[in-house]
């Protein structure tokens, strides 16, 4: 009986027990969340990326090629980051690290489980790109196939790179490079930080070729099939060294992470460990509000760092979309900012539900200062969603349109923050989701 079989069986049992214990909320919440995100993305996608669908026939394959490359980048980036989380930082590692599990079996199980959990990337793409099918059904179908092949390649290439990163983290020959890249991080951590980017770099040319293959096939050129199938072939080849690498690296990764987590800096400078993103802002708040704001800044940063930093990713997307002299630039920037700020503000709802009880019991009952403090924190976290796009608009189109983007963005930030704090107190995500979707769609409707 392999470790993969035993681990898989235990996982199925855990899933069954969880459903029995929590009822529909175990799966209904994520499903509703996914539908809300999809609902927000559909108009955004139509407005920004699918304007060519009703255009001239000779432009469609090229537009599809460009669009597929963007979708591929999302799929690869998403899976690469998830694979690091699952293989190196996953909850299973904490349980299994002291037992004699076969690492190759565990890695195979984890990757298959992640693959199952990320099937929605293919399904989501099929839905988001569905308007293409109304005019170009073959092109749409080929696009879905291409994204599916990229998904396979992303899984195996990310597994390979993550396991290779374990060896690289401790290789003395890589030390100078890692030291140059690591900033304040532990050297070993640097190898993992850059692994997703390396995956993108390594497979970028292959998926780009596959996207070209789609346009060739659409033009009835059969050689396009070779290019289209390339990610599948490379994905299969990339998997070959995974079992032996897993046996060499999986246990070792645990000790590496223990080193990273020990963070000697914490032992040397205890204040350093308490510093979090934007905590300097609390000095400008009244004392009775500042303590709650600091609590949220710290707890939010530690528990939901990815979401908080996601505001910068949204801002970056907004900047890229708005870097144009096209009159639609400001609308693009504002649209992305509006959707982004509602997504980022959801941290406020989660904060209320996932903060440890001891935090609540240590502080006196907060009342208004607590809720206003949280709203202020949410407003601060969301700022990058608006400012980067507005800056791009200011550079390319002048201060007037940029002011418009800022106005719409800040209004959305204020509304999203109030809604998140209110829904955090009553209703939670099931209430916040529809409110966010309706509000964002309303603003998008007005903008468009």
């Amino acid at each position: 009986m392999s470790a993969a079989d035993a681990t898989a069986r235990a996982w199925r049992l855990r899933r069954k027990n969880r459903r029995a214990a929590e009822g529909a909320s175990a799966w209904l919440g994520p499903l509703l969340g996914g539908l809300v995100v999809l609902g927000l993305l559909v108009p955004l996608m139509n407005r920004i990326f699918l304007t060519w669908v009703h255009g001239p026939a000779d432009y469609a394959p090229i537009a599809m090629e460009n669009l597929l490359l963007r979708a591929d980048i999302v799929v690869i980036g998403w899976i690469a980051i998830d694979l690091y989380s699952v293989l190196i930082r996953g909850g299973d590692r904490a349980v299994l690290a002291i037992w004699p599990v076969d690492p190759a079996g565990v890695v195979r199980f984890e990757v298959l489980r992640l693959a199952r959990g990320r099937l929605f990337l293919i399904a989501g793409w099929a839905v988001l790109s569905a308007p293409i099918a109304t005019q170009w059904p073959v092109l749409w179908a080929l696009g879905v196939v291409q994204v599916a092949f990229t998904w396979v390649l992303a899984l195996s290439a990310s597994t390979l790179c993550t396991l290779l990163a374990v060896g690289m983290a401790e290789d003395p020959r890589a030390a100078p490079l890692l030291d140059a890249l690591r900033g304040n991080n532990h050297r070993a951590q640097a190898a993992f930080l850059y692994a997703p980017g390396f995956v993108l770099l390594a497979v970028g040319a292959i998926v780009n070729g596959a996207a070209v293959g789609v346009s060739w096939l659409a033009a009835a050129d059969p050689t396009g099939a070779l290019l289209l199938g390339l990610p599948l072939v490379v994905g299969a080849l990339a998997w070959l060294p995974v079992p032996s690498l897993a046996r060499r690296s999986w246990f070792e990764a645990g000790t590496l992470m223990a080193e990273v987590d020990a963070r000697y800096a914490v032992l040397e400078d205890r204040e350093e460990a308490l510093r979090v993103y934007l905590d300097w802002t609390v000095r400008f708040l009244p004392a009775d509000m500042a303590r709650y704001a600091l609590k949220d800044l710290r707890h939010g940063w530690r528990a939901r760092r990815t979401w908080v930093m996601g505001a910068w990713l949204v801002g970056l997307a907004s900047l890229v979309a708005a870097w144009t002299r096209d009159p639609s630039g400001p609308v693009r920037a504002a649209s992305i900012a509006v959707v982004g700020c509602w997504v980022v503000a959801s941290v406020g709802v989660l904060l209320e539900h996932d903060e440890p009880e001891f935090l609540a019991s240590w502080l006196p009952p907060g009342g208004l200062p607590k809720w206003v403090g949280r709203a202020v924190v949410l407003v601060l976290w969301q700022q990058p969603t608006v400012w980067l796009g507005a800056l791009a608009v200011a550079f390319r189109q002048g201060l007037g349109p940029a002011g418009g983007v800022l106005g719409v963005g800040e209004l959305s930030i204020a509304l999203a923050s109030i809604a998140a704090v209110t829904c955090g107190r009553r209703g939670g995500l099931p209430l916040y989701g529809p409110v966010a979707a309706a509000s964002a769609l309303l603003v998008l409707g007005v903008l468009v």
Partner: protein
Amino acid sequence: MSIELVGVRKSFGHVVAVDRVDLTVEPGTFVGLIGHNGAGKSTCLRMITGLLRPSEGNVRIAGFDVVEQPLEARKRFGAVPENPALYEYLTAREFLAFIAEVRGGGDVAESLELTGLGDDADRLIREYSQGMRRKTALAAALLGQPEVLVLDEALNGLDPPSAAKVKAALRACADRGQTVLLSTHVVETVQAVADRVVMLAHGRIVADERTADMAPGDLERLFLERLAETRDGGERASAQ
């Protein structure tokens, strides 16, 4: 040797948690590892179980280097870490069945009985108290009668009857030929069940004695004396 630490040192930046520890434990020996808070007990045990890599030196379990041969070493020990991680949405019985499968065998019912988890074995682990979680981890460590048991504060949080039952079970393990390494703050526990006591202070072994040679109360006295000596020595070194 069942457990062998040679020149083991562990540092985190400038902080030395374990300093040049040499320790060998023969099969069938019950060793109690005692020390003050921050003495380096958990760091030692984490290195012995392969969860942490020594900065210098080697750790071997039943002849297998825990860093170089992690799978072979793990086949030979069962462990209860300081904060045992368990699958929250399994019952204790299901979790133990899973571990037995991973280990390639083990009597789940016997382990549950030894740790006194029988009546609660079919409740989800997420509903357990800290003591029950520790019992579950202990039951998992006992499965399959591994050559070596490495237990970090394994009796913490256990009610007195359960603690007595577990101590008897561990003593029986040692009598059967299994090696037991138990870290604890409670010197009475060590004196009652262990064959040998190893005392750590500030990352170093400051005493290594047979408990059979000690009268009741000797161990506590020795512990306090050695701790004071180490502290005085450290203060003198700092002053110089």
